[in-house]
């Protein structure tokens, strides 16, 4: 039995992370949960929030995800996120820029346009990402 948890986080754009870690804490829709190795099979939806990867009790990496799923099997933890970004890669200023750009795009579209709904979700994600950066 391996004493490390295999963790992979994928978004439609790319595989954000894949490797062996000690401990992962993820924002489940019904509350935050932690996953260690040999966790029971578990599946949940996620809400917008920070996924923390812990190594030796200290946070090694923080990834901000939008929605998606966590799937824990005997093989490890897989998180499927709609969008994911490493927190260290973004700054409050760059997020603010994106928020403004998205807002402009939303305003240019019709109210019942389906693309607008998709953009709205992206906008909410950016807003909560900004909030996470401030803290």
């Amino acid at each position, binding site marked *: 039995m391996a004493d490390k948890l295999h963790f992979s986080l*994928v978004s439609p754009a790319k595989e954000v992370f894949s490797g062996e870690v000690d401990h992962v804490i993820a924002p489940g829709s019904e509350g935050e949960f932690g996953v260690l190795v040999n966790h029971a099979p578990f599946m949940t939806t996620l809400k917008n929030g920070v996924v923390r990867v812990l190594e030796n009790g200290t946070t090694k990496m923080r990834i901000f995800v939008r929605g998606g799923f966590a799937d824990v099997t005997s093989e490890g933890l897989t998180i499927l996120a709609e969008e994911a970004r490493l927190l260290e890669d973004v700054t409050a200023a760059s997020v603010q820029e994106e928020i403004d750009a998205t807002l402009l795009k939303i305003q240019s579209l019709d109210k019942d346009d389906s693309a607008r709904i998709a953009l709205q979700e992206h906008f909410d994600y950016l807003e909560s990402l900004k909030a996470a950066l401030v803290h």
Partner: protein
Amino acid sequence: MPSLKDLKNRISSVKSTRKITKAMQMVAAAKLKRAQEAATASRPYAERMASVLANLSASAGAGGPKLLTGTGSEDTHLIVVLTAERGLAGGFNTYVVKLAKQKIGELRAEGKTVKILTVGKKGREQLSREYGDMFVGHIDLSGVKGGDFSESAISLGKKLTSDFDAGEFDVATLIYSQFKNVLSQVPTAQQLIPASMPAEAEEAKLGNALYIYEPSEEGILETLLPRYINTQILSALLESAAGEQASRMTAMDNATNNAGEMIDSLSLQYNRARQAQITKELIEIISGAEAL
């Protein structure tokens, strides 16, 4: 026999055509690389998604949501035809349209109602002549910048699921060009709704392990299924984009070669004609001199 001037004009026109096709080939090659990378990058997500869904649906059984089990009837079919925005890509668009026509023909022969949704301008152009009255919509891809299809995929997915909920159709099939490799793109028909599981994902399930579900199995399925459909659409869009560039690259390579051959044969003709004229002029001078 064309005159020397005509030949010269034709040679220079073919030469500039060759320059254009050569440039288009190089542009396509550069774009292909990016498109291919994007298609490969999205694959792990799609695969994981499929295996998660296979796990879930195996334990959900018959009581699952409609997106998985269908409406119970299959009278109205929606055919989503995914083609490129631009032509000059060999048979790329034509093959997709051909498969779509075949599929539509089959369904109509069975007496089903067929509705068509086109994605990409070329498919609409080619299908509207014959099936204009069956169109229910069109999605334009010309606004997509730099191969970022995620927004188009999500909006198409949303449209499909909401139309499905409204009872507009029973079965949705996506027809697109699957990217096998640079030399071969295979037109494929893939059923989107009710969601179909890839065969290999079925094997990946973990012997019906006892899962803990949060919030509930149905709740997860309900959020997962629309996303699964979006993911399938997204990977189809990406593969189609890669295929388009690959197909254009090959087509333009052929065109460049053909133009080269044409230039060779025209140059030969030109040189012969020139020689013939020189000979003629010489004969005229000599016979003129002899007459004196």
